[in-house]
């Protein structure tokens, strides 16, 4: 492969003893993303079948969710995807300060997303919509399935947000220490890819749970 040859030449030129394969790193990240897509794909499949079997319960379940908070989280998550993309542009142009700035905005948004989730879940639980609750038992099988999927799917998604924050903190430190810079930024790029994946999943979760009813 031509790319590898170029990389090899580069290695021997200046950073002879450090082994680097950015293309390989990126390929690995994409393979991981495919497994993530299939993980969530399986959950979407379960959702589709249960919705097909319990159309009314899923319709009523969707009406219980707050469209405003869902839309708000969608908007800020999209903005955070743009800011992480911009931080990559900044690092590619060698603008460390700007990269850190955009990364900080992304992290703040990620935290805000989780805080919203906390209040959203809190309100639902207080109202009696939680796994194994008396209310869900009364409302029947379909509603139980809807809220079960709601907690599992948005819960796994929220876990991804949490992991994303961890990755951002690591990358932030590495940029500060100049370990990530204009010629070596694959860590930032892959973290960005991961974050876009989190956004991608939410793009489908949002209409399925909040909008359709």
């Amino acid at each position: 492969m031509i790319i590898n040859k170029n990389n090899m030449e580069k290695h021997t030129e200046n950073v002879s003893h450090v082994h680097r394969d950015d293309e390989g790193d990126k390929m690995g990240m994409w393979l991981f993303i495919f497994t993530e897509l299939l993980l969530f794909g399986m959950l979407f499949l379960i959702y589709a079948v249960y919705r097909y079997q319990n159309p009314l319960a899923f319709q009523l379940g969707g009406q219980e969710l707050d469209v405003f908070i869902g839309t708000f989280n969608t908007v800020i998550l999209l903005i955070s995807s743009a800011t992480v993309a911009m931080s990559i542009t900044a690092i590619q142009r060698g603008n460390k300060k700007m990269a850190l700035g955009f990364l900080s905005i992304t992290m703040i948004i990620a935290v805000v997303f989780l805080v919203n989730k906390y209040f959203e879940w809190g309100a639902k639980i207080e109202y009696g919509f939680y796994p194994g609750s008396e209310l869900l038992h009364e409302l029947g099988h379909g509603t139980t399935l809807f809220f079960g999927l709601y907690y599992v799917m948005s819960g796994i998604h929220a876990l991804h947000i949490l992991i994303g924050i961890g990755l951002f903190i690591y990358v932030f430190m590495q940029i500060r220490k100049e370990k990530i810079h204009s010629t070596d930024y694959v860590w930032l790029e892959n973290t960005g890819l991961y974050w876009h994946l989190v956004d991608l999943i939410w793009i489908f979760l949002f209409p399925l749970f909040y909008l359709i009813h």
Partner: protein
Amino acid sequence: MNQEKHHISSYTSHVIVLFALLALTAASVAVTQLEMGNFNIIVAMILAGIKATIVLSWFMHLRFDNKIYAIFTAAVFVLFLLVLFVTFFDYSYR
């Protein structure tokens, strides 16, 4: 990193992509407020599909990367749709 391998997206392009995504979000919220029955689901999923394609193409850089990533990604989505199809084929005729 050689130039031809690494396309650097401009800040402006990211902002344009962001506004396109926000507009599509607004459209899907507006459309699903109308009472159209099952049509709502179809429209919402088409809009989500467009948004996903935009995120994959621009933010995730598939448009500018080696084509193999785009092909693999498409294959994953096709696989998912096939599994969805087969599953529903099964459930519909039980």
